[in-house]
């Protein structure tokens, strides 16, 4: 899933200060799951913005709505009747959702309320960790199902650097050394020989290297 975190309130207030009425739009997908932009967060932010502005002597009307998914145009269409009289839209979706809303409503300023962070998994309640960088050429089959590109601070593809200590990365004890994990897993799988093979230099064209990417399924595309 895509994870995100709310931007500092101060930054958001700067965005909306010029307006009298805004529409705050949540998304019921990834950002709900990672507790950043679901109905509850929309409510909390609406309240917070109103209070912060009220305190500064301004007042603003914040309309709240949460879409099933902000990155699909059909859902975004739902917003049309709510935009009447609205000066600006603030989106609590990931970057994809913000752009989709901005694309649809050309004459309304659209602002992001969140910082989109990474593709990750939930380690436990309230904790999400990065798992994938979308390199476009998955090598998890070689590395025991643990990605060294997303999870090694130096994206080393051939083993742990000299800073690996007790299973932790040199950048901090709260970060696991991806290669220590990979090695443990390879041992469990009896695939230690995979480690001995040298992974060649990666072709980044499948990833960001080749510029913005697109997927087209011929059978579905219309």
């Amino acid at each position, binding site marked *: 899933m895509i994870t995100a975190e709310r931007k500092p309130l101060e930054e958001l207030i700067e965005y909306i200060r010029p307006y009298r009425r805004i529409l705050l739009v949540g998304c019921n997908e990834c950002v709900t799951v990672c507790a950043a932009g679901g109905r509850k967060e929309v409510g909390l932010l609406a309240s917070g913005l109103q209070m912060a502005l009220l305190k500064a002597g301004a007042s603003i009307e914040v309309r709240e709505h949460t879409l099933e998914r902000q990155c699909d145009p059909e859902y975004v269409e739902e917003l049309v009747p709510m935009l009447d009289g609205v000066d600006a839209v603030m989106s609590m979706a990931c970057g994809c959702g913000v752009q989709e809303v901005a694309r649809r409503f050309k004459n309304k300023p659209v602002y992001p309320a969140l910082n989109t962070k990474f593709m990750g998994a939930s380690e436990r*309640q309230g904790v999400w960790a990065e798992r994938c960088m979308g390199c476009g050429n998955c090598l998890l089959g070689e590395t025991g199902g643990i990605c060294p590109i997303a999870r090694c601070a130096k994206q080393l593809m051939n083993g742990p650097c000299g800073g690996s200590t007790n299973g932790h990365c040199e950048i901090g004890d709260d970060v696991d050394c991806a290669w220590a994990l990979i090695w443990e897993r390879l041992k469990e799988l009896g695939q230690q020989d995979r480690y001995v093979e040298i992974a060649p230099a990666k072709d980044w064209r499948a990833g960001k290297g080749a510029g913005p990417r697109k997927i087209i399924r011929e059978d579905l595309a219309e």
Partner: protein
Amino acid sequence: MNTSNNRVLVIGGGMAGIRTALDLAEAEKNVILVDRAYSIGGLMTQLDRTFPTNNCDLCTLAPNLSEGSRQEHIELVTMTTVTDVKGTKGDFTVQLETAPRFINLDKCTACGECHKKFPEWVRFTPGLDHRAPTCMRYPQATPQAFSIDMAKCTDVKALMESCPAGAINPDDFGSRREVKCASIVFVPGGALFDPSHLDYLGYAAQADVVTSLEYERILSASGPTMGRLIRPSNGQQPKKVAWIQCVGSRGLQKGAGQYCSSACCMFALKEAIVTKERFGDDIETTIFYMDMRTMGKDYERYFLRARDEFGVRFVRSRPHSVLRPAGVDNLVVTYGTDSGPVNVTEEFDIVVLSTGFRVADDVRVLAGKLGLDLNSGGFPTTDGFNPVVTSVPGVYVAGVIEAPKDIPETMVQASAAAIMAAGDLAPAEKVEKTEADQELLPPEFGVVGEEPRVGVFICDCGENIGGVIDAGALADYAGTLPHVAVSRLQGHGCSRESMRQIQQIIVDEKINRVVIGGCSPRTHEAKFQEVIRKAGLNRYLLEIANIRDQVTWVHANRAEGATEKAKDLVRMAVGSVVRSQPLADHSLPMNKDVLVVGGGVAGMTAALQLADHGHKVYLAERSAALGGQAAKIHRTLEGDEVAPLVRDLVARTEAHANIQVITRALIVDHSGLPGMFKTGMQTGRQMFYRQIEHGVTILATGALPNRPAQYLLDECSQVSTQLELQALIAENPETVRTWDNVVMIQCVGSRTADNPNCSRICCQTAVKNALRILEVNPEARIFVLYRDMRTYGFQEEYYQKARQAGVIFARYSAEAPPQVKAVGNMVEVTFNDPVLGREITVNADRLCLSTGLVADEDGNDELAMIFKIPRTADGYFLEDHVKLRPVDLPVPGFFVAGTAHGPKLIRESVAQALAASSRALTMLARDTIDLGARAARVDRDRCAACLVCVRACPFGIPYINADGYSEIDPAKCHGCGVCASVCPAKAIQLMQFEDDRIMAKLEELFERSIA
């Protein structure tokens, strides 16, 4: 009044009596509960916190009490003694004598005005001791009433006028009556040893020497010092507190019982821990003890926590004296230790005497009237395998009167006594009641979509509310609020007359929502729900504004602020109630069949009890035959033969028409709800799958004998376990006669790092086998190497007997365990004798290890996963509440009995099996299962299936269903609302506490405050 003799008389209103009465009443049996005191509750209501959870028990106990008073099957008779008993089982005639209370219970609202004006005349204190005068017995007292000490009253007229409810009746002369009953449960509880005559302990002379119960009152938030720990002599906070154990127990002092009082070690540990918790390093706590007897479930861990986490100091010594020399501010305790002949003196600020239990003199007299045989301590003698059965058929005992014990065991026996007593009743006819019920309740009006018409009823509760605020003006104000159709002052709203009026107004004025301004919803919500339901409204269209307990009682000195706050609360209640919706109580049809898992003594006992009460029982046993571990035991400590018991149980179980025994049964799956479970198992040699539908489940899966590879066990033929030894004594006494030296080592595989808890049974087993060896071979020298001898209750007398018979008991420490070596066909055992202070080597013909019990790790793990039942760290099933619900498991409809709960003796297992059956019977008596309305509800359209609720629920109830959204079974939901609060999609609402109602309260509160 019920004059039929088809009911049970319960004598004693302590925890045991309440539990017995509640179990019987819930199983729809009629009970008359008699207590001498003016409100029930007994000793436990005096405790501040109870071990091992250190919970304050007030809140866990309180619901039990009010439940007790509500139950229609219980006739509660307080301030009453039993003066005579005649007749036999099935037909007893009992004479009761009631002392005058001088208060009409129907009128008294427990407002406390009389006590406020005339504290000297109103009984309101437990009268424990001049040093611990509590201001209130306890706030949830049942009945909620006071009692007048007329002897002290000098102005009856003034007293009568002080009562706003007109409840004082000076012409109360008490009464006598005769009642008939089929069986009697005798639960008078225990008295505490009075150490006043023991000059050397200083109790009578020194204010700072207190009993453990008095110390408890000093710690208690509702105690005389409001929970401030101070020295009674000078009001200063103490720096050093000492406990002296075994005061009045183990025959140690003049007048002391010969038995162990069983509960005092844990009592002292708890007090020491609570003291350390509050004051940390500012206070030192020391416990002087003989043997640390923490043999209950998980108690050893509690002891270790006290020692290792809280730094409680333990001194194994019996102090000689507690003195306060002239000119010294502190108490001086003199004691000897193992390390030398010289006595040590040490100063303490408070010395707590851990006083044991005894049977009160009047209780002994009453036991005589019941015709009970008594032992030397005055306790009734009981059946060797059933501790609640006395020498008189139809009379049962439970709790401390059976033998000294702690609360969980008391609760177990109370439930056990209930089902035994219920067995003596003739089958009840139930038909009438349901018809009457239906007559009472009219159909509910439809209110959905109707404009809200709120009726507000403001109580003045006499002076309680009316004396502080203008209740009439408040009612007028409420009348101006939106949606309020009727608003009126209702006097004592909870009086019968008022409730009738409210009901009428609801009907006449077409009221569809109700707000009561009065007492706390905690105590009165159920009552008013009943009222509006009778008027044809759904019971959840109600809000209560707590303007007495939380306004007038606490803001009496600020009339204006109180008035404004009362208005706020009423307005908030109105705002909330208009958003309330009718809710259905969740209920399910009850399947009245029972599944018992485990065919040992506990399982068979439970199965037979429930089968006798007419329920179909499936008894699933993993092995090929019934009998369990008890089949391996020959005799009990008291000398009863076990084999006939087991044979009889097996025969009766197999022959019972209502019991189906399924051997070689392996439980494989489980689903359903409490009251309608489905459990799948593979059975027989062919492992056929079958599924059983049942309403309740009793787990009696037992435990396993431990067999750690220590001390040459299984390496040397002269080394055996106690279980093997007792078989040898019985089967091959010739060999036993050849022995010169026998050594027994205690705590093998128990109280260790891997298995920290005590196995409970081994000390008495060692004593039993030592005495048995001496019967066969009087010349044998027997050494018992122990860490603490834990011969609790009456077992202590056998321990003393063994010592007198020459058995040598030598203590070893965990750090220096005995060393053993096989030499020829002997075992050389070397240990350090702390009394002699040197090493001793014994060439033993036989080394016997007390290896105790361990949980069936694999079996329990499997069952715990299938049934979703938590276990303790050592693998036993974990009960719902270790004190008050010791056989109820946290999953409703599940009960535990026997050693699956923790190590215990056969008679303890039997008691627990009876208790589990009794608890099961309370559920089985119902035709439907009422689950209340407070449950979480998921809006599937909003749910993002994020798993947050699944992870947050403390009980693991929500799950993502096949349709891909969270589903919360209202029958399993506990109604805490955590899921609703954390849901990031706001897809969950907790019924009765919906977000819009909470928001409405906020809205209404600030409506005026800010306006």
